[in-house]
């Protein structure tokens, strides 16, 4: 034993580290959903474009960002593995085919823009254009399905609430993508994105509330959680934020709309986390405290994460500052 023994005896500063890691995990997932969410949204909105020039605009808008955004999912997987290894193992093996479907969707989405730019002929671009749209639409739907299965502890792959959850996330990415394109584009394209954004936001509020209702009806085990004031507050917050988003877009305040999207995403993630608490894997009957790793690695990971994640946020600030403002098609792709 080296001189790190003091780290093995009690949690750092007596903090509730298990609960903090549960929160951190959902924060990381929220970062992924917000950031890669607009990439998915842009991919879905790509389907509405006929003009080659506009398609180039959409691809250029996410070009420098999507890879970094997707890494939040890598970090989510890693953090889940590191902090709750049994949950990582149970969840991923239980929803085996779903996981691989998500990976295939992400692969298609990642590959498609890169391939699209590789050649200029029509057939090639049509094929990769469709792949881009399909990958961008299928992935958030399946992610929503996965998270909902995880939350309610579904034993099958496809459940009615799961499908509703999938649609909720899918629509949310369109809300996200439209606001992002509001920031990144100009002219007629921007006007159309505004319209799509407003429609998607109204739709989002509808499906999100339907999903909550469906959970309440079909999952008696979760009903007591609905009385939590936090749930009520998050539902009200979601409705308010949807309103803010719509008003912001109508008044052409694109940055405000984009910020409202971020809050909407974290509102949704907060709802899931609150409903799941104090479990971290309901099917396996594992609570947060039961599934957390032992004190020594937990303390070490906590120190590392609290140093590294703020630095990571700085990388993102540098990246987004370097490419701030509207896209200049002349200089990208």
């Amino acid at each position, binding site marked *: 034993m080296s001189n790190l023994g003091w780290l093995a005896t009690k949690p750092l500063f007596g903090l509730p580290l298990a609960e903090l890691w549960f929160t951190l995990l959902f924060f990381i997932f929220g970062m992924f959903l917000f950031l890669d969410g607009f990439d998915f949204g842009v991919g879905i909105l790509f389907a509405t474009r006929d003009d080659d020039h506009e398609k180039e605009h959409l691809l250029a808008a996410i070009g420098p960002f999507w890879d970094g955004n997707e890494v939040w999912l890598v*970090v989510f997987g890693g953090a889940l593995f590191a902090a709750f290894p049994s949950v990582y193992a149970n969840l991923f093996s239980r929803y085996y085919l779903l996981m691989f479907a998500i990976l295939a969707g992400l692969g298609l989405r990642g590959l498609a823009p890169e391939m699209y730019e590789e050649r200029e002929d029509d057939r090639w671009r049509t094929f990769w254009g469709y792949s881009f749209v399909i990958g961008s639409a299928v992935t958030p739907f399946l992610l929503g399905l996965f998270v909902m299965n995880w939350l309610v502890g579904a034993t099958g792959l496809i459940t009615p609430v799961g499908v509703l959850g999938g649609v909720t996330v899918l629509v949310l990415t369109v809300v996200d993508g439209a606001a992002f394109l509001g920031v990144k584009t100009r002219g007629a394209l921007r006007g159309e994105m505004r319209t799509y954004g407003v429609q998607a936001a109204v739709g989002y509020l509808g499906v999100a509330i339907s999903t909550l209702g469906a959970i309440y009806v079909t999952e008696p085990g979760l009903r007591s959680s609905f009385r939590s004031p936090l749930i009520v507050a998050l539902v009200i917050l979601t409705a308010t934020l949807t309103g803010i988003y719509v008003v912001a877009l109508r008044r052409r305040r694109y940055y405000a709309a984009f910020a409202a999207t971020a809050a909407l995403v974290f509102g949704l993630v907060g709802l899931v986390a609150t409903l799941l608490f104090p479990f971290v894997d309901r099917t396996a009957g594992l609570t947060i405290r039961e599934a957390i790793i032992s004190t020594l690695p937990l303390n070490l990971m906590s120190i590392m994460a609290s140093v590294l994640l703020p630095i990571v946020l700085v990388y993102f600030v540098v990246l987004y500052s370097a490419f701030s403002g509207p896209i200049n098609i002349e200089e990208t792709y």
Partner: protein
Amino acid sequence: MVDPVLASRLQFALTTIVHIIFPVMSMGLAPFLIYFTWKEVRTGQPVYEQLRRFWTRIFAVSFVVGTVTGLVLEFEFGTNFAAFSTTAGELFGGPLALEGMMAFMLEATFLGIFVFGRDRVSDWLYFLSSIAVGLGTWLSAVWILIANSWMQTPRGFEIVVENGQRIVKLTDPLAAYLNPRFSYMFIHMQNAAVESVALFMAGVAAYYVFRHHVWDYPIEHIDVWEKTLKIALVVLIITAPLQVIQGDEYARHVSETQPQKFAAMEAVWETDSYVPEYIVAFPTDVSDLLNPRTKDLFGIGIPGGASWLASGGNPQATIRGLDSFSTKAPPVAIVFWAFRIMVALGFWFILLAVWGVYRWWRGELFEDDLLHKALMASSLLGFVAVEVGWIVTEVGRQPWVIQGVMKTGAGVSPNLTGAEATFTLLGFVTGYLLLLGLYTYVVGRIIRSGPPSKDELTQSDSSRGLESEVTSGE
């Protein structure tokens, strides 16, 4: 239906075999890209911008495909090896999480700037981005190899039984993460990546140099390719000998810490002294040709060679045979031949490097068509050496997933059905063949289109950035 254990093992093998190509490409290219960017920023010579832009395109494609295949790898520990993940997660999950936070994030964000942002940021920040990207790729290797080397030489833990499950508990993080194997593995892997990319660069450059100088078929940017060939040779003459010298020490370390793997590498069944180093060995009975564990071998070798290697100079040294272990031997023939191919390639690369540097010194580098052909033929052999090297490492340690602690078969997800596993395995075989085909096709196109022409460069026309080449390459 394939048995879920076998299907999971095959699927994981396929995933890693395909995935490793892309990190090798990015880790190997990273130091070159930093150098090109530095020279471009400092000297403003167009050739460095051409080099940087050309190789960045290949880096970017490799990074995307590497992300796609790497994410699969990270998830497969959970999907297919849930029992392993539950048992070892406390120790094994940490490095994967840290790889994401510390390395992958750095690489992915600054790659955005490095690929798209030449005109958006200052020279200084641009050069810094190249370093951040390179550092990111290498830090990834640190964490991934910490995780892997711990499975080879596990340290710093104890086994506790919780709810009827054996759980690895971390007791000494420094001993676990800086385990005895880590430094050998890290040096061997990183040097292999740089060497492989140097070979690849030399092969591509030789193709153009050959066409220009030998076939008199004028190539537009021949100065770029001449420079590439020289830079690649300089890197090759350093990395190729280092790989073999360090590899020898690595093999000795394996013989001390994983004697069963070493015995498989040398096909030693009975414990013996004065063991020969077989150059080749074949089953004496033809019916055993497809049996990787046959014991009756006819070999041609150097007397006492294996003993000499294992002990570092004593041909009389004893080597423990596979029969003396209580566990089933790994498929010996695979390990034996993979090791021989790797070593043979290692020596061939030294020969190539010496040959090339000698011609260069004589001023005949661009005239020796046989050298050009040899370099072209060897352009992908570095990657082959990496693949067979990993086969020695991973097949050689079977049946263990964690050496001496947990067997691979015991690590597979208990609920996984044969149908699910077979379905995804088939999906992987199809998907990864397509992916490899696509990657080869795209990299081939990039190579054929060559570097951007001089009048497209930032220096001569500041309104055009790096990406204009993506479309003008058509």
